[in-house]
């Protein structure tokens, strides 16, 4: 036995979307009259539209709520609003009076600090201060001296070498 669902047929593909709009009363006049013309000769689309008329209103059945429900609802919103406003108020009460003098006071403080810094630091700022010699650490100074020492030792070595070369030359001449 065929089920009810099997017996139902779908609407014509090119009209299905328009039929949904037609059901809801949407779409421009030309579209609607095109659908109406088609419906006059199409059983499938007529049944599709009937299905929509049966099903869709039942899906959207609104539940009824009593006036007391809405009265409670309203009172609750007002309560929530009051609670929110009170929550905001405690810090606003603290901040708002300060806001009047907060900006000028902050500006004055910044200017005063800058002025102090300029006066106290006058002449002590240099772009590239040269490092005084006496401030070079002693270890580095020692290294420099050692370098000089080694240089002089090298020179002595060279001198000895020249002298020994000279001696060799003169000895050879004497022979």
């Amino acid at each position, binding site marked *: 036995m065929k089920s009810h669902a099997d017996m*139902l047929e779908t609407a014509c593909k090119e009209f*299905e979307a328009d039929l949904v709009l037609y059901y809801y009363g949407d779409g421009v006049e030309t579209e609607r009259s095109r659908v109406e013309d088609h419906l006059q000769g199409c059983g499938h689309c007529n049944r599709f539209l009937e299905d*929509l008329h049966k099903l*869709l209103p039942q899906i959207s059945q609104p539940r009824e709520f009593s006036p007391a429900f809405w009265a409670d609802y309203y009172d609750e919103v007002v309560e929530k609003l009051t609670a*929110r406003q009170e929550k905001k108020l405690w810090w606003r009460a603290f901040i708002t009076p300060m806001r009047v003098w907060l900006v000028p006071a902050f500006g004055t403080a910044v200017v005063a600090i800058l002025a102090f810094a300029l006066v106290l630091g006058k002449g002590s700022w240099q772009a590239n201060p040269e490092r005084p010699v006496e401030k070079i650490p002693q270890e580095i100074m020692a290294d420099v001296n050692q370098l000089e020492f080694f240089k002089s030792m090298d020179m002595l070595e060279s001198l000895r070498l020249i002298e020994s070369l000279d001696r060799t030359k003169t000895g050879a001449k004497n022979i």
Partner: protein
Amino acid sequence: MCQKGESQFFEVLVRRYMEKAFRIALDFTHNVEEAKDLSQDALLRAFSRIQQFDGRSSFYTWFYRLVVNICLDHTRRKGKIFWERLGDEPEDGFTRKELTDDMSRPDREAMAGEAKRRVDQTLEAMPKKQRTAFLLRNHQGLSIADIAKVLETTEGTVRVYLHRAVAALRQSLLEFV
């Protein structure tokens, strides 16, 4: 805005939009308490952020966007959408007689519960924007143009969402027709 003006504005805002906000949230959550919390949160946010409303769209599309975003965030955080328990709410649509005329009462209730569960399942399986487009059109009666504004997309895309959603629901509920 002075304090008195603010409180008057808040009263108008809540009185005019509380039901719409609550029903959207209920469509998303299927839970009255959660829907209450979310919709009340949306109203409070709308009130505190009213200066962000630039007037480019109508107020209610701006407000709907706020509600929908809060609901989508909530479902994202929660992971999955709820399933309504079988036979929980006898005033729901699927307990109505047109589905099940010739059945006994327990059969009708079981059938209605099954259909309701199928709807929830199908809606849950839909992509978020598709589901939202369907809920806003079918449940809230928003126009396609307004849904496009709420979802920040084109009208063409909304039509596609709507068609796919309806086709999926019809497919899943054929046996109940």
